[in-house]
């Protein structure tokens, strides 16, 4: 239990850049070092973790923790993965109130803001080569309706899921005929 906590603490503390960057780290700790789950389970876990809502790292922590030590294991793995982020951001938030109007910090953030926008926009551009034109219409319509019409992203997500399911059902029926 303690080891689960410790392993996921390490994963949480050294994973920069979000979910996908964590995968090799998780692989090393969970499969190679501790042999908590096998390779085949790892694949199933990654599909589960990517399909269910929430951060991928958190989802994998629940899976590995529960498989090895039940609910207690899941809780300690989750505590491990959340704690480094939590402590670090809390410290930054505590400090930031005081240093926010420091001219050096202000200048640094003026530089970082447009950089952040570029980081968010980049994956959309790199997708543009692989995505079908019809899907592009959906993507643009989604972005437009959230930003200018103020539609809720949650409603659009549900609509997308339902349409996808309807298409699968319709497709299955057509193939049966």
């Amino acid at each position, binding site marked *: 239990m303690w080891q689960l906590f410790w392993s996921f603490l390490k994963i949480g*503390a*050294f994973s*920069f*850049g979000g*979910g996908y960057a964590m995968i090799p780290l998780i692989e090393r700790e969970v499969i190679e070092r501790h042999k908590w789950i096998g390779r085949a389970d790892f694949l*199933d876990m990654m599909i*589960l973790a990517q399909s*269910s*809502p*929430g*951060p991928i790292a958190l989802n994998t922590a*629940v*899976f590995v923790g*529960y498989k090895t030590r039940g609910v207690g294991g899941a809780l300690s793995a989750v505590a491990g*993965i*959340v704690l*480094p*982020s*939590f402590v670090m*951001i*809390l410290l930054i*938030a*505590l400090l930031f109130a005081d240093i926010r109007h420091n001219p*050096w910090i202000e*200048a*640094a*953030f*003026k*530089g*970082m*803001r*447009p*950089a*952040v*926008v*570029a*980081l*968010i*926009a*980049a994956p*959309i*551009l790199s*997708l543009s080569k692989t995505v079908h034109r019809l899907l592009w219409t959906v*993507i*643009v*319509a*989604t*972005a437009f309706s*959230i930003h200018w019409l*103020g539609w*809720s*992203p*949650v409603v*659009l*997500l549900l609509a*997308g*899921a339902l349409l*996808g399911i309807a*298409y*699968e059902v319709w497709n299955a029926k057509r193939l049966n005929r």
Partner: protein
Amino acid sequence: MILWQLFLSYLKIGFFGFGGGYAMLSLIQNEIVVRHGWLSGGEFADIVAISQITPGPIAINSATYVGYTVGAQMGSEGFGVLGSLIATVAVSLPSLTIMLLLTHFFIRLRNNRLIEGAMRGMRPVVVGMIAAAALMLIFPASASADEQSFIDAWSWVLFGGVLIGQIRKINPILLILLSALLGIVIYH
């Protein structure tokens, strides 16, 4: 009560956070900036920048930060810590319960056609949500200085540079740190 609203908002973000970090940005933005006005658009961009250079999932980072900010608005740092705890627990709860159920019943999502259909239907929406997050930072809701990500021509130079860097697969942490450095050189 504001802490209860904070809890509900982050519960919702956790529950509908399909498609990983960047996709969750639009949900977070919608709840925190648009609906409740707890952060300005500019502060939101700042927390994304901080999340990029600190470890851990962006959803958790933003929950801790926003929780602290919202709590601290109630008057003291103690409330800030309480707020960050509440938001962080709330954003983790849906993951925890849904993954526990899926793992317990060992539901294999591989080859499940309905789930695959739902995922396929959500994918373009998720990409659209990422685009909406970027749009909101480019075209903020108000003209106040704290909302602006782009203040002059240098902003667009930095934007273009980072965009090219990202497409060339340069490490994003390095790109953020470089733009912070350039920010100091240009604006200080």
